[in-house]
């Protein structure tokens, strides 16, 4: 007897509502500073609501994410999972296991086929917002002409969408600016090394935009190391996601001028609200759309952002 398995195929009908006592937050990017912030806030939020939350340890590895999700699917004490899929289609293949076991499956940062609910925020949109900020600055400060270095992330779907958002946005908001180079960089070290190298070829770069904020931190250090004043009025450094040193530099009036991020507090709240809402039979929580924010020196809540990444 050959069975074709049950991991894929049409999602099962929704299980009847049942209260959610324990949720698992599957946030695979464990090496990123944002992981720490998210885990702290969600824990606080969950504790306040009297439910338990647990985190997977995927170590930025898709296979690991799949195995861990598979393992959690069998844990009786778990009522719901919120998964930030490294590859939505791949994670989609195990949704059904959760539903068969009467657990809620909520996707984070995108849609996963078969999900019960989703906590959405658009990566393309975030890239676009950063490009808009940079584009505005370029036309204001440099009369629309600028040389731009994009530190991209092509290692996964999210990175590609973010990069796409930045690149397309630049065309839209700063049509006269030229992207002189695009290089892969996701850690501060890579950002530093790449920026130094590209500066050798294009010493007159005006704008560095990073698909991953941590790389922007490296880019900032690279510019400074190359002799650019850290508050150079004619340079723009920006990135997606907050990064505490960058936010601090922004506050101090350095050349870090734009960061785009979701609010960790809001996200943490959603991470708890959505499963609990599902458990209470509240269908309105099904499609939570998280706002994405542009942070600049003028943002009134800048201190709050800084606090989020260091407490």
């Amino acid at each position, binding site marked *: 007897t050959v069975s074709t398995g049950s991991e894929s195929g049409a999602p099962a009908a929704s299980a009847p509502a049942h209260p959610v006592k324990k949720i698992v937050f599957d946030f695979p990017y464990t090496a990123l500073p944002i992981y720490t912030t998210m885990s702290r806030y969600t824990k606080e939020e969950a504790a306040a609501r009297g439910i338990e939350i647990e985190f997977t*340890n995927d170590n930025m590895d898709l296979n690991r994410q799949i*195995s*861990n999700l598979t*393992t959690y699917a069998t844990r009786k004490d778990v009522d719901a999972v919120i998964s930030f899929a490294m590859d939505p289609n*791949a994670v989609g293949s195990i949704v059904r296991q959760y539903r068969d076991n009467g657990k809620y499956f909520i996707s984070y940062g995108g849609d996963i086929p078969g999900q019960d609910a989703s906590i959405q925020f658009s990566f393309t949109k975030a890239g676009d917002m950063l490009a808009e900020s940079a584009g505005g600055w370029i036309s204001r400060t440099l009369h629309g002409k600028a040389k731009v270095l994009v530190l991209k992330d092509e290692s996964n779907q999210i990175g590609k969408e973010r990069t796409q958002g930045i690149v397309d946005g630049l065309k839209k908001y700063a049509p006269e600016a030229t992207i002189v180079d695009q290089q892969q960089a996701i850690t501060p070290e890579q950002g530093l090394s790449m920026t130094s190298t590209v500066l050798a070829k294009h010493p007159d770069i005006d704008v560095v935009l990073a698909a991953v904020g941590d790389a922007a931190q490296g880019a900032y250090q690279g510019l400074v190391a190359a002799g650019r004043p850290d508050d150079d009025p004619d340079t723009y450094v920006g990135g997606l996601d907050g990064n505490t040193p960058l936010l601090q530099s922004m506050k101090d009036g350095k050349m870090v001028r734009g960061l785009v991020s979701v609010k960790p507090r809001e996200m943490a709240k959603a991470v708890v609200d959505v499963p609990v809402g599902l458990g209470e039979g509240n269908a309105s929580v099904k499609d939570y759309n998280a706002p994405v924010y542009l942070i600049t020196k003028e943002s009134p809540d800048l201190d709050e952002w800084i606090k989020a990444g260091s407490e």
Partner: protein
Amino acid sequence: MTGVSFTKPVSGKPVSGRPFARPVATRAVDFLVRNPLLVLLIAMVVLVQIATGAQLNWQNLRGVLLDVAIIAIAAVPCAMIVIAGYIDLSVGSTLALGGVVAGMLLRDGAGTPAAVLVAIAVGALVGAVNGLLTAWLGLSPFIVTLGTLTAVRGFAQLLSPYAPSGFGTSFTTLGVGAVNGIPIPVLIAAVIVIAAGVFLTLTPTGRHVFAVGVNREAAFLSGVQTRAIPFWLFTLSGAAAGLAGVITVARLNSAPPGQLGTGFELSVLAAVLLGGVALTGGEGSMFGVVVGVLFMGLLTNSLVLLGVTTFWQSIASGAALVAAIGISASTHRLQHRLTAARTKRQAAGTPATSR
């Protein structure tokens, strides 16, 4: 005896390897002492089962076995490469390439058999390049396979920057289907392990793999194919990684080129070495490799089931690796002592001069 017959009569009767028929209990103890990792594995499973009650539930086990099957498929030829005194670090990327190639073919309308075969062939090609460079040209296998690890990953990403996904059930069955309740990948892995075990212990070429690993020069002088053997092992390793890629993709129903099998090579190597294959070559068994692979698979699973938190999981799994190899080594010594004590007891019964 074939060929020559000696004129002189053969004197002295041959000493058999096992002079005494030993009781079953002794042999069982021996077996466990000889396979300390197995003991550790069993202990871990029992404890986790008692603590959580979840590990041995079939659905959990099924997930673990699927993970383990994929590692095992790649680990088997990898282990043989290490036994032959080489090393293959490129399997993670070859897995990705195989998976991506299969995914692309399926997306473009190819049938499952064609997709699987081409993916295996592409993997074998990568392996053959490794084999050519290391076995035939004598280049450092560490550097060469590190080079292909990097290059093949880039190639897979170039080939298909976006992840092909959403394959038909005829294909995904390969990853999630079952025959008589046993998942297909597990069956494939079992066949490969058994075939490799038979090859390594029961065929002359299998023994030559060991000979090459222990002393390549002596093997060369004895007429062993010291180049062809590692070459084919590399090719096999590539093919197996390609197959592992196909199964992974069938399981995931998606083939993201930048994410498939990242870090896989280190998991595979760790499993192989834990399983008692020596990096210095010439030592190891398929049984050991299976235990090593199971240990690696169940370790992660146990930590998750036990609810160990993220960073503690890293600490615990690093420590577990060290502990596992440490226990293996120390029981090795224990084993020596046991044997010594036992023979001493026997020797006391039979005077030494009688030898």
